[in-house]
């Protein structure tokens, strides 16, 4: 963490110090507001101001880790909290262009869980671009996921598309995992990514999204991707790279050179901060706190602006 903070300090010397990186981040140059209190952004007022300041920007949504089918004490009502997340998206003053879901749609890759998730997510009325989490590919050969979300994708479900001048790449890093290892992209996917990026202008903003963080958040809990650095090497020539992940059920952000890394909150249950508990299992919090730790993420981008604005919104402030 120290290195990334130092890096951030160099980039924004007036706005950031080690504490501020975690508590409050303001990128005035890009009109970006990302405000977090105690690790959780909670001020709807600030979100409202950001909306006003960025009127005209195109936005897209990220939701993650719905875990439909999970019914343990950490959240016995994952349908209810996903429904609340969709409700928040529908209530946004500016309709997002589309949505990405960064995996763990279901808890156990069951048909009913996929059906139930879809019945809620489809109510947002948005195109949804998915990548799988490890909970979505439990069945043999991950057929259920690919049948639903694999159309038009390459290999085991990876793909790219362009929207409003931004190049989006959905990566799969939850398959063919190796004993003792972390997330895995694999040689075939990396070769495809290299090909996909070839010839693109370095000034085109790039968004990589995948379930498990592509950077090592906490190796002891498997929170990273073994060959993630190879993917990041392939995008380092681009002027603006945003990496969006889920999996760890909490917001983590770092800025390294031209790359902004960001993990989303879950819509199902929170997980402990790295190393703060015996394991990364679901964290039981008082009922009245749960929805403050769950949420959705809105990302704004404007033509000609390098940085994308990332705003996390809890289900309940």
């Amino acid at each position, binding site marked *: 963490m120290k290195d990334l903070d130092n890096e951030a300090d160099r980039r924004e010397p007036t706005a950031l110090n080690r504490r501020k990186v975690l508590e409050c981040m303001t990128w005035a140059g890009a009109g970006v507001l990302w405000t977090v209190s105690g690790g959780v952004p909670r001020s709807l007022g600030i979100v409202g101001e950001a909306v006003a300041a960025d009127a005209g920007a195109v936005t897209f949504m990220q939701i993650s880790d719905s875990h439909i089918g999970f019914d343990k004490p950490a959240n016995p009502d994952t349908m209810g909290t996903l429904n609340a997340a969709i409700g928040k998206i529908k209530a946004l003053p500016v309709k997002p262009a589309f949505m990405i879901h960064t995996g763990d749609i279901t808890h156990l890759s069951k048909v009913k869980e996929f059906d139930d998730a879809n019945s809620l997510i489809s109510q947002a009325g948005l195109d949804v671009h998915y990548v799988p989490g490890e909970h979505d590919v439990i069945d043999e050969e991950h057929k259920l996921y690919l049948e639903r979300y694999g159309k038009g994708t390459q290999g085991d479900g990876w793909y790219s598309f362009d929207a409003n001048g931004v190049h989006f790449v959905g990566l799969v890093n939850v398959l063919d*995992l190796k004993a003792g290892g*972390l997330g895995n992209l694999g040689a075939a996917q990396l070769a495809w990514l290299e090909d996909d990026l070839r010839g693109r202008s370095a000034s085109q903003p790039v968004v990589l999204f995948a379930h498990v963080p592509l950077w090592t958040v906490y190796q002891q809990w498997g929170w990273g991707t073994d060959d993630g650095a190879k993917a990041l090497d392939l995008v380092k020539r681009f002027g603006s790279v945003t990496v969006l992940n889920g999996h760890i059920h909490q917001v983590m952000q770092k800025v390294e050179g031209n790359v902004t890394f960001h993990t989303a909150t879950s819509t199902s249950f929170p997980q402990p901060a790295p190393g703060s508990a015996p394991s990364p299992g679901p964290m039981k919090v008082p009922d009245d706190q749960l929805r403050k730790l769950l949420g959705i993420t809105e990302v704004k981008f404007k033509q000609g602006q390098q940085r994308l604005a990332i705003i996390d919104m809890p289900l309940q402030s």
Partner: protein
Amino acid sequence: MVIASTMRGPGRARAGCAALIAAALLIVGSPARAADAEVTIDNFTFSPQTLTIKAGSKVTWTNRDDIPHTVASTAKAFKSPALDTDDSYSFTFTTAGSYEYFCSLHPHMTGTIVVQAAAGPAPSQ
């Protein structure tokens, strides 16, 4: 950020019991006889992480976590389906050797089953 301490459910006490039972079974079994054994999955950890048994013994893994896990042999000798909370999976080891395994969903979780020949000294590893 952490609002309340992590709650792990009742698994821990049972895990301790299961480990004791497994250990007891190993002690009771004579060197030449197979004895069934248990491995508990709790807090994203296989316990005991290394288990030594006699050939012919059945090992049963039980998941006490709120998150599904699998038991997958690194050499593809065996693989469980996803084990939800309190689900179990058993495999009988008939051939001496060292069997490394991991959770294919959370591959940082690893364990080893050491299978000794049913009679005679353990093979050198």
